[in-house]
């Protein structure tokens, strides 16, 4: 712009603002660095808050949802009539295929010894609808619950499930502790 070597007033002004911006940016980054865990934050479902509303299956931006059922074996009662697997027996039926809750048939069970059965969730089939979670929570031990699987989750800046979760159950957790596992208390 200027023909001479002497900087114009406009150039001096620009240089000053640029320097201020640089200093401000460095200052902000420094401040953040001391305050942040440096780890990224990820989303997780707090199983104690989740009320099994079923929105996880549809709200997630992924298809199928990144939220999937987890089964805590150590908390399981190994019920013969698993409440997560079968609908309430007051509906009449018991352990027949028609009475299975899971819409995708993701839950299977194997006989162990009378009267105990071990159940397993096929994570490739589970769509995170929480029907089994509801059953297990209402009538059983609550050993089935939902977790956002971080091998699938896109880590949206704003989790679409958190937007709609009526129970405020989807929370940010530090990336190095990405799961909220159900563990026995006491």
């Amino acid at each position, binding site marked *: 712009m200027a023909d001479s070597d002497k900087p114009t007033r406009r150039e001096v002004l620009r240089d000053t603002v640029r320097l201020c*911006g640089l200093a401000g940016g460095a200052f902000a980054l420094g401040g953040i660095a001391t305050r942040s865990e440096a780890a990224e934050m990820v989303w997780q479902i707090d199983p104690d808050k989740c009320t099994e509303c079923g929105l996880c299956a549809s709200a997630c931006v992924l298809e199928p949802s990144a939220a999937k059922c987890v089964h805590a074996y150590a908390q*399981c009662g190994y019920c013969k009539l698993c409440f997560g697997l079968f609908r309430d027996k007051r509906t009449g039926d018991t352990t027949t295929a028609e009475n299975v809750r899971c819409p995708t048939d993701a839950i299977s069970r194997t006989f162990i010894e009378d009267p105990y059965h071990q159940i397993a969730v096929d994570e490739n089939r589970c769509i995170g609808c929480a029907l089994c979670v509801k059953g297990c929570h209402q009538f059983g031990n*609550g050993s089935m619950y939902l977790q956002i699987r971080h091998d699938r989750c*896109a880590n949206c800046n704003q989790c679409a499930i958190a937007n709609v979760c009526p*129970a405020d159950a989807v929370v940010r957790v530090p990336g190095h502790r990405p799961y909220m596992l159900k563990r026995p208390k*006491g």
Partner: protein
Amino acid sequence: MRRAGAAFLCLVAPLVAFGQTADQHSQPPPQFTDYRIPIERAAAPRDGSFQYVDLALLACLLVLTAWIVLKRRSRKELRIVSLFALGYFGFYRLGCVCSIGSIQNVAYAIAHSDYRLPLTVAGFFVLPLLAALFFGRVFCGGVCPMGAMQDLLLVKPIRIPASWRAPLEAAPYVYLGAAILFASTGSAFAICEYDPFVGFFRMHGHFLMILFGSAILAVSLFIGRPYCRFLCPYGVLLRWASVFAKYSVSVTPQECVQCHMCADACPFEAIQPPAIAKQDRTEIRRRLTRTLAVTPILIALFAFAGWRMSPMMASWDLRVHRAHVLRDAEMHPPKVKTVLADAWDRHRKTTQDAYVEGSAVEHEFAIGAPILGAWIGLVFALKSLSNLRRRGSNDYEADSSSCLSCARCYSACPVPHREYALPPLPMASIEPPEPVGGAV
């Protein structure tokens, strides 16, 4: 416990044999004769190293774009870089986190001291702005996947009449203000929720958002980067930063022959024609005083409107909505309990708790919404002055604040570009630049 975080449910059997479980209906685990309670397979945590790759790539691509746009002056090479950015940040990393959305994290972090801004997010917010302070909007030109998507589709740019452009260009300022209000109150990350392109990156999304995105992409066949120019809130910040850019796109290497070709080639109307005859001073002064007089009125008007609208804005917040739902339910108990009310009960919280929470949010909006209104009023007032802005130059010049660094104008300029070099850097002497590779 065991390798905390890595294993999904390594519950140890002996612990459970005695310990009572967390849930209320517990039946103790049975005593098996010949069966061991299995330990869950590990589910992978998120690969944390990616965030550093993202940050490093962002920084590299910013510098690379600056070099290509300002020094190599090659649209062809720039296209390759932006295709890569589109593939990596867009389709591979699924679009999160991005600089545009990071505004909200920053706003949220400022308002909520318990939220720790992750370093990646901070980097995505700061780095493109720093780059803009030096090289102009190189982020838009080569790094932003959303910009790339629109830019690569542009086939037949048409001009938008100037009278339409001013109001359209005010929209990003309004969007920025609204996004900050909703993020800082913790109500919503609107930029993410209404992101028109992220659905394409993920190949899945809400139907209406996909429709919106498709509409924008269809428009961008003819209008250069509609989202970037008429919506993108981060563009506002980049615009401010790039006003002070040290090196930004400068069309002609030597002497401008005033042929108007570059301005025709720019699909974003970012090239300012030479200042024609000096505008009448008294005319300018009159418009300035008129605007100055109108500004406070506009601000007050919009602030008032914001204040009136604050209850409505607040009601979009889930917490306020919940308080309303619970109040309604108390007055007219519904047959079926809503999921919101059900969840609230199960958390053993009272209706009073919901009121307290909801009214706190309403209070925040009662302060924030008038401020947003005042901001919108200010933007409208200043936008009416935009055609008064005069450049000091006698030549065609790219306006660094609206130039998106797309490198289209270079090949349109008929003046030979071979001997062109950047203004000398303060460092050592610079080698002569490579010849520009033909028209693109």
